[in-house]
């Protein structure tokens, strides 16, 4: 069984490369600096939330409340920026708010043995209500605005065709690359990363090896709050806007993030590739709208593509102990 999975996974990677290459070639007509930078910007919140989701779930705690983290940090980012006039202070505050929410989630799951899925939904509901509520209380409207990030342009490199977009972007885009690389490194090269893995696959193994599963899971969940918080604060602060109607400006990105890390098989790089696939299709979709297909149908392209890719690539394997509560000393 396990062998099957690992083979499947290896085959999965291969298929992935082929699929990406095909998608890439067929869309190459659309690749230019504009679409690349648009794709990267659309990727930021999804990628960060996905990285957060990876840490939490790999450690065995399914964090379905990523959406909530995005919402709360998006709002607090704007609010704190507006209060202080400094985007970076706003940014950090947004991240802190999301981390705080993650801390509540962690306590509820790890101390009070809450069902992770229910608690995650609760986190989402709370944030979905709280952010627009606070906005209304503070600004009299569910929408709020503030200063925004200025792009950082690296002279010379930014003029390169296509890839120039990588060197002409707002700080969150650069942060995203750092975070993807960093997450991969932490998960695959450090002792902590190994503990995260063990904690999600076989917590008893980790526990009996003398590492506190509880502590590893706390850190992982808090990390997921930090990362998703960066995503949410980046989302709102890139625009200097928070809009809190309906599903708020986050509008399902937290759930797309879950899709994306599953598709990327819990690998930060895979998740990032899936994110760019999805975001890239969103960008291209806008361009295709002007064709003869009705735009309502064109808008389904990103979603259908993900389904097709998944059907071809096949299985994603959830960590064995994800979603289970673990109490040290349990048999």
């Amino acid at each position, binding site marked *: 069984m396990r062998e099957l999975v690992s083979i499947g996974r290896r085959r999965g990677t291969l298929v992935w490369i082929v699929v990406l290459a095909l998608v890439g070639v067929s869309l190459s007509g659309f690749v230019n600096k504009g679409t690349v930078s648009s794709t990267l910007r659309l990727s930021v919140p999804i990628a960060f939330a996905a990285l957060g989701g990876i840490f939490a779930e790999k450690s065995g705690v399914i964090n379905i409340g990523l959406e909530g983290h995005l919402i709360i940090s998006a709002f607090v980012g704007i609010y704190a920026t507006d209060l202080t006039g400094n985007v970076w202070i706003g940014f950090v505050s947004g991240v802190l708010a999301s981390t705080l929410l993650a801390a509540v989630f962690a306590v509820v799951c790890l101390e009070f043995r809450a069902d992770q899925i229910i608690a995650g939904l609760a986190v989402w509901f709370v944030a979905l209500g*709280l952010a*627009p509520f606070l906005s209304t209380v503070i600004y009299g409207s569910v929408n709020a605005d503030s200063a925004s990030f200025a792009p950082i342009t690296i002279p010379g490199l930014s003029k390169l065709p296509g890839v120039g977009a990588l060197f002409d972007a707002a700080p969150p885009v650069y942060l995203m690359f750092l975070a993807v690389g960093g997450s991969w490194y932490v998960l695959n090269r450090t002792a902590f990363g190994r503990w995260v893995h063990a904690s999600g696959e076989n917590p008893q193994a980790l526990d009996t090896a003398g590492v506190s599963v509880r502590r590893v899971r706390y850190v992982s969940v808090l990390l997921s709050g930090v990362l998703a918080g960066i995503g949410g604060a980046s989302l709102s602060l890139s625009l200097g806007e928070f809009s809190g109607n309906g599903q708020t400006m986050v509008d399902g990105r937290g759930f797309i993030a879950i899709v994306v890390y599953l598709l990327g098989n819990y690998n930060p790089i895979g998740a990032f590739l899936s994110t760019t696939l999805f975001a890239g299709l969103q960008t291209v979709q806008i361009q295709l709208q002007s064709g003869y297909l009705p735009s309502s149908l064109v808008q389904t392209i990103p979603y259908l593509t993900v389904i097709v890719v*998944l059907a071809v690539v096949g299985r994603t394997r959830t960590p064995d102990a994800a979603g289970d509560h673990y109490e040290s000393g349990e048999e």
Partner: protein
Amino acid sequence: MSDVLSRAKERLRAVLERSARLSAVERILISTAALVLAVLVGAVLILVSGRMTTCTTAAATYFGVGFCYDPVTVFDRLFFGALGDPMNPLFRPFQGEFAPPFRKGWSPFNAAMAVTLRETTVLVLTGLSVALAFRSGVFNIGTQGQLVAGALASALGLLVLAPLVPGGVMGTVLLVPTGLGIGAVAGGLYGAIPGVLKAYADANEVITTIMLNFVAAQFALYLVSNHFQRPDSQVVETVPLPDGATIPSVVFDPRMKFSLFALAIAIGFGGVIYYLLRYTTLGYDLRTSGLQPTGAEYGGVKTKRTIVASLTLSGALGGLGGAMYVMMILGNFQTGVPSYGFDGITVAILAGNNPLGVLFAAPLFGIIKSGAIVIDTSTSMPPQLVDVLRGLIVLFVAMPEFFRMIGRRTIAEKPNPDGGEEDA
């Protein structure tokens, strides 16, 4: 001597623990405690935010401090408002005044009650949809999409069929079951897609169902706006269904868009699903696959088919919910279907994925939805707080261990406060 005591205590604790593991009573106790705690935390939140805003007159004064929002009013509006204000203000048993408990002129068939119950009706169905899938080990996040598919199909189907059917009671007798059936079939087929993808292509249903939700919404938009658009309407919608194609209301004013008949059907399905899971071979197979697919295979369960079956059934329930929405609430199909499917997830989870539990969890959300409207129209508090409250209720229900801990502390420790040091 302490030996006897501690043994007695041990026994008491064992009894408590055992009953704690089994009982539905405990679930109800915990849910109630969660509700109370959510209300308390919510009240604090209301007071705090009431200090953050400015208003000209205090809505309430506690401990000599004025607050812009009054939690008592808010919760009164939320819970009693959703029932159409049944309580007689003169009925104050604690003060020893026993006026008739119900307000004069209050009828259980009022408009607020109608909203509460019609939301409940749809939520029972979506809650059952999600619960059935979860019990079978399938994470169907796609009830929303299946509901949209069912809603759209039943509306279009009825529009096509209605002219072929005689009017009057006969028409209704023919059209209503047909419309509900079309909704269920369409939802079922739409649910079968992720089922087949999961069973035969190993595609994670969480991903496919989330994606299919978006696809359903977009496809409905395409179909209605390009082929079935109601002329002269400013929104994307079909022409209204003929009268015979909507579910006839019972007792309630037809304009209140609620039918007791529909509620009865939904509750009936709660019983049917309970029976299915508990007493039938199919239900046993579904539960077995849900808990342990390898064990199910061993027991002769055709796991792939079971996956497809569970998603199809789950989708059918969602589709039925969609048909109810169209045939009872809207009277036609409009894009922008409310998130009944997602709320269904919450309902199911709160109910512990138990079909009978769904029948209790759904009304809670019906009340919250309906009461939020009353809060919005009758207090100055921003109604988003109701979402926060909903989140808090869910959060507290999610942590039974917290209440068990409290329960243990208060019940089990008390009889023998000084014997506690013996056990860990």
